[in-house]
């Protein structure tokens, strides 16, 4: 059981990192981080981008669930 969730968590983490990197970075770094800087134009998100969002959210939920599951498994493994 622990092994299964460990593998799931590893895979989803890697996917998560990949998917986030695939997004187009918005908000150009530190330069417009604190005050100043013209807000970026409204480039409507494309279909690809919207699908990417959907995948990211899906993987994110699985990632979150497996973090909690694995955390609980590791915490109560010895005692239960």
């Amino acid at each position: 059981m622990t092994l299964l969730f460990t593998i799931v968590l590893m895979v989803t983490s890697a996917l998560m990192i990949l998917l986030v990197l695939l997004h187009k970075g918005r908000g150009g770094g530190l330069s417009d981080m604190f005050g100043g800087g013209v807000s970026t134009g409204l480039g409507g998100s494309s279909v690809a981008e919207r699908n990417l969002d959907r995948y990211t959210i899906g993987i994110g939920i699985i990632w979150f669930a497996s973090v909690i599951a694995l955390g609980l498994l590791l915490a109560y493994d010895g005692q239960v």
Partner: protein
Amino acid sequence: MLGAFANAFRTPDLRRKLLFVLGVVVIFRLGSQIPSPGVHVDNVQTCLNRIEDQGLYTLINLFSGGALLQLSIFALGIMPYITASIILQLLVVVIPRLELLKKEGQSGQAKITQYTRYLTLALAVLQATGIVALARSRQLLQDCDQPLLHDENSTATFLVMVITMTAGTAVIMWLGELITDRGIGNGMSILIFCQVVATFPASLWAVRQSQGWGTFAIVMAIGLALVAAVIFIEQAQRRIPVQYARRMVGRKMFGGSSTYIPLKVNQAGIIPVIFASSLLYLPAMAAQFNATSDSAWVRWINEHFVQGDHPLYMAVYFSLIIFFTYFYVSITFNPKEIADNMKKYGGFIPGIRAGKPTEDYLSYVLSRITLPGALYLGLISLVPLIAFALIGANQNFPFGGTSILIMVGVALDTVKQIESQLQQRNYEGFLR
């Protein structure tokens, strides 16, 4: 004031954005509380209570909102992103290729942002490895000899924790970008704001418990006065008048208007403070990694740079802030570019010739107005240190210079953006 809030929520577009930001913040804070798999939560809590008021930890906790020491999945917070941004910002000056990209405008900027994102994740892996390794060898929380992990010898746990924290950093980055994209304000700065504010009530309450109501009232009064002073200076600007010549292009008439270039006293914002404090945080971090070796330099750093009330620390902090203020203003504000643009569109500053004299004038005014700005940033960062040392509150006073500047800066910025959205619909804003 309250009416403006009601108006903000009555506008459907703005309401959606505000609720979106709130939702993301809730997710962010939730993630900051969930421990990584394999962490022994009870032991961590016991140890945390024991070491509550040590200098370095409050500094770490400031930027991570308490998440780092709890070894949560968002333990690294936005620190990797800030560090990556700083590094790229400095590299732009050094590496010609990056400078070319920056000059290219929007597309080049997008590329630099992409590099920042890659670098963020690389740094996240490094930091996560460091922190988990520290936790494993029981050095993360000093003077605490209980195991922080369930299975300290297992490689699998180690790997899982590192990759989870790295993925957590990726998620934070994405959340920040989502806020910038679909919410209001700049995502990353709002997330920093949350982390700074998150530890605020607790540390305020700690003052009350250790010092009593009298000191608490004084702290509150000084805090409010500081906030007011910071707002006053943040809003201050010098307006350089610009007159545009009237000209005919075909049948249309252009220009003939008079505007101004606003030069803020604090043109650099709070970036110098963040630069300086994250630079000063490095030696303390290095000392902590080598805490067991007990060599001379570790002791020296612990003596001078960890507590934060040593005169040497204050002096270095102050001069770093002044240096970075000038540095950052010179990066972001380019008088030559502005002078050229004005010349191109037929604008001039009354009494000053277009072209080179305008450029000289602008940089002259800018360097003069930046001096009080830089001094202000340095003093605000130090005043709480001195004042509270006098009252006798210890290191974890709530109104630290850095946190107060971040709070006020981000809040002002965000409120201004909400205000400009409101004004598009002719509603009265927050600021009079």
